[in-house]
């Protein structure tokens, strides 16, 4: 049962030894006064982080009244984290959007669906006639269901034919996606969560798993606190809970991942901790990577990263002596300087050691969001459906055949447009229609002053589908009320390729509808049709959309053809799952063959420093032929380093109690009370240099903006501050202006993205801090 799962985030330990089953522990939370025998349990999956825990939803009298972890599910063995236990309460909050809204004389007023959607359709048609599909853009999320992404992808790519479709997964998993494509030829994580049971060494790079995926951390902790504890190497500038458990913690200067990883590789090569036979048989590019690593002896890497070279040597020794090495990355890599180069260097470290495709040996390029994997599979994020390659003509012809449209309709003359480029097109007036679905860019994108001014532009028609009023709906021309998880049925897939079903438990409030229903209604009103005049997309409900997706995935690395809704009711299944492999696939690449053949691969590769795109001919010249691609880069310093004016490095990130911009978790009482307001973490040394005490109000300023927050003094690197990114202004703004009362970390961040993955670098930039007020008594005593 959930005792104090706010104070005791990870709950009781169930330690166990290597190679043994992770013991089950069923976590349940029912609202007070409700007993188990009066509820109906509905099969679902937690959608409040990227872990993908099997969960049942308790329903009584048509209302959600609690949740319980599924004991049989391969991902969580019954456990749930605090967000999973408490977050569902947001569904029934009183300020849900229940009717469509349209802007009239400057104000958003309620209307009916016909009126709202007809306005959207009319504006679409006007722009199609005036400027073509290139004037229309879509920006969605990492929290829709697979069926909704695939529908959106078909609407945008085959219905309208616009290249401007991206997701907020650009902020969370674009680099994971890119790194997997660069190294293995195709998206898809090689390892499995069950590798935690088998590994003897864990290598966590920029992955604060204790806060970002609490149940995955429980799984690691149960090994770390059991017999034959795996060794743990952590790369993180902050002294996180994970770092405190580490055998080796490389507390590097932010933005220097590549230097440190090059240094580790240098040591692996110099000490002969390399499986040369495997490397020669299963990879290309070893010499190039070795040449670069040669330039980073630990002394140089340590000097760049401001860490003791002995720590880098020790990390390399642990990794070099591992027999079963499991490596993971998250936002400390993906949102930092040289994101793709660093993520690929982690892949390289496992590959040179031959640590892939075996129990306990593998790589998890983690996802930030629960359904991020599906947007990558379905192409609602800047990819093409079924991991197809936009530069490969026969891949695009396959899509045209699947959808029964002319191939010329599909935008394939340039790469799908990423969100930061779409914003630039909004800025120049080139994109004049933007439909934002289930995301809150007015808080989550960098340099908010700029983002708000673009979203508020007169010549931009902004449609927002959401369940709640947000900082972004404040700027919209049309707001469409969307059903949430629990109010609709669909599937989603986590980072270890486990596909789950989440069934509808209750009705959506008021007139709210699922995003699938909204998109299909739009498609019908637009009259999208295939070559035979059949409606496009042809499906009309979640299960028929899923069946159509299965055909799109057939024969591709993410093959779903062996999965059905019925089978998923028995728990998650890992793709690829086919008739030949009906139980799914625990690990990819067990035979050392990779989908890098030019005919098969999803990407021909990009240069890590500039983003220069390889052509098919250039890719063929590398002759990967089913081997993994080793590719590295030299360290390049961040574009904005601290200086006299702005002397501190800015880091931003998550706290365990909140999700994104708090639209849900801020409406769940236990989570909101646990972390009600923003704070700024300052090292004790910087605090004392700036005359700042615990709880004092501090102004944090960058070249782009400022926020005020009470200080939390922490152990850790001097010269860096940390701000959680969750806090915007939906519950503090005045007069419906999202700029007023904003506490968002993104007021400070800079507009810059990784050249290869196009992921915005939200952990970049320099700031200065000034004390602006004394701590209230309570805060100083640590009660605030």
């Amino acid at each position, binding site marked *: 049962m959930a005792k104090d799962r706010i104070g005791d985030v990870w709950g009781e330990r169930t330690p166990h030894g290597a190679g043994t089953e992770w013991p089950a522990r069923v976590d349940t939370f029912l609202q007070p006064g409700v007993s188990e025998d009066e509820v109906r349990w509905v099969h679902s999956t937690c959608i409040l982080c990227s872990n993908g825990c099997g969960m049942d939803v308790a329903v009584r009298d048509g209302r959600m009244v609690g949740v319980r972890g599924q004991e049989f599910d391969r991902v969580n063995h019954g456990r749930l984290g605090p967000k999973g236990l408490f977050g569902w309460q947001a569904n029934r909050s009183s300020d849900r959007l229940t009717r469509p809204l349209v802007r009239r004389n400057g104000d958003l007023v309620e209307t009916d669906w016909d009126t709202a959607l007809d306005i959207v359709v009319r504006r679409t048609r006007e722009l199609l006639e005036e400027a073509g599909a290139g004037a229309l853009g879509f920006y969605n999320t990492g929290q829709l269901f697979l069926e909704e992404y695939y529908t959106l992808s078909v609407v945008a790519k085959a219905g309208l034919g616009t290249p401007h479709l991206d997701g907020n997964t650009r902020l969370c998993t674009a680099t994971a996606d890119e790194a997997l494509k660069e190294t293995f030829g195709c998206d898809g994580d090689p390892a499995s969560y069950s590798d935690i049971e088998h590994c003897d060494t864990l290598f966590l790079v920029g992955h604060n798993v204790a806060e970002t995926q609490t149940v995955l951390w429980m799984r690691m902790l149960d090994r770390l606190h059991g017999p034959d504890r795996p060794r743990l190497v952590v790369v993180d500038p902050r002294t996180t809970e994970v770092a405190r458990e580490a055998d080796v913690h490389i507390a590097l200067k932010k933005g220097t991942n590549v230097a440190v990883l090059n240094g580790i590789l240098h040591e692996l090569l110099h000490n002969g901790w390399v499986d040369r036979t495997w490397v020669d048989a299963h990879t290309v590019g070893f010499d190039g990577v070795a040449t670069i690593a040669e330039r980073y002896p630990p002394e140089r890497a340590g000097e760049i990263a401001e860490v003791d070279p002995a720590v880098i040597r020790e990390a390399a020794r642990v990794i070099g002596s591992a027999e079963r090495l499991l490596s993971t990355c998250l936002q400390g890599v993906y949102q930092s300087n040289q994101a793709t180069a660093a993520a690929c260097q982690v892949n390289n470290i496992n590959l040179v050691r031959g640590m892939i495709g075996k129990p306990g040996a593998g790589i998890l390029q983690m996802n930030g969001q629960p359904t991020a994997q599906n947007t990558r599979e379905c192409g609602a994020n800047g990819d093409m459906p079924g991991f197809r390659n936009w530069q490969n003509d026969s891949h695009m012809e396959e899509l045209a055949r699947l959808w029964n449209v002319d191939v010329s309709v599909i935008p394939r003359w340039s790469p799908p447009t990423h969100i930061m480029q779409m914003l630039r097109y909004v800025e120049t007036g080139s994109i004049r229609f933007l439909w934002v679905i289930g995301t809150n860019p007015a808080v989550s994108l960098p340099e908010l002053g700029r983002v708000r001014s673009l979203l508020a532009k007169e010549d931009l028609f902004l449609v927002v589908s959401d369940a709640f009023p947000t900082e972004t709906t404040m700027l919209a021309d049309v707001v469409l009320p969307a059903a949430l998880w629990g109010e609709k049925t669909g599937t989603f897939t986590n980072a270890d390729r486990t596909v789950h079903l989440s069934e509808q438990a209750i009705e959506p409030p008021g007139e709210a509808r699922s995003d699938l229903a909204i998109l299909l209604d739009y498609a019908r009103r637009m009259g999208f049709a295939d070559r035979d005049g059949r409606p496009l997309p042809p499906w009309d409900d979640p299960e028929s959309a899923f069946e159509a997706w299965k055909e799109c995935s057939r024969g591709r690395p993410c093959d779903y053809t062996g999965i059905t809704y019925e089978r998923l009711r028995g728990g998650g299944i890992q793709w690829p799952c086919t008739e030949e492999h009906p139980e799914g696939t625990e690990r990819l690449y067990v035979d050392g063959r990779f989908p890098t053949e030019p005919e098969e691969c999803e990407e021909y590769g990009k240069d890590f420093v500039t983003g*220069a795109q390889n052509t098919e001919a250039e890719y063929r010249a590398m002759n990967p032929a089913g081997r993994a691609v080793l590719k590295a880069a030299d360290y390049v310093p961040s574009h904005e380093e601290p200086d006299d004016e702005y002397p501190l490095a800015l880091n931003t990130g998550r706290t365990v109690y909140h999700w994104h911009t708090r639209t849900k978790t801020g409406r769940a009482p236990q989570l909101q009370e646990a972390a009600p307001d923003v704070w700024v973490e300052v090292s004790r040394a910087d605090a004392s240099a700036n005359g700042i005490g615990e709880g004092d109000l501090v102004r944090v300023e960058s070249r782009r903006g400022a926020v005020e927050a009470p200080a939390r003094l922490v152990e850790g690197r001097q010269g860096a501050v940390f701000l959680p990114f969750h806090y915007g202004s939906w519950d503090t703004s005045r007069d419906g202006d999202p700029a007023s009362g904003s506490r968002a970390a993104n007021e400070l961040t800079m507009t810059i993205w990784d050249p290869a993955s196009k992921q915005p670098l939200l952990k970049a930039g320099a700031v200065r801090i000034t004390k602006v007020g004394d701590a209230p008594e309570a805060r100083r005593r640590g009660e605030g």
Partner: protein
Amino acid sequence: MGRAEPVHVGPLLERLHEVEVGLADDYRLTGERHAVEHDVFHVSHTLAKQCVAHANRLRPMLERYAGGPGDEASEEPSGLADALAGARRKLSEALGRREVPGLLLLRDLTNLFVAVAECELLWTVAGQCAQALRDAELLSLVTICHEETTTQLRWVKTRVKEAAPQVLTVG
């Protein structure tokens, strides 16, 4: 080995040095003119530094083949150039936020492509000469710089291909 002085290699390397120094300026100029194209701004400045590094790596070779090391290239623009760059950036921010600057971007990237292409060709020739002269040191330098310059060319082309359809068909 008693062979004749390779008289024409000196001028080739001098020209290469001059082209790299000029290219660094071109990148800075492009970056500042298009400061609101944030990727162009950042990548251009990174590549400007790369060109400066290429020019400076050539200096020992200039000493060997052209009788002197030539001027050291600087990562920082000169005072006047710096002032102009700052002004251009302000102008870019003032104009770029409002008007359609896509055509200007395409024009500048096209000019840049031609300049990088010349540089790439000169490195190709320098590589051939290094082999003909059996100069391993020159060859290893050329190999690195040529590869980076080839990537520069690919970047400019990639960026043009990203921008052109939108600018030219949508506006």
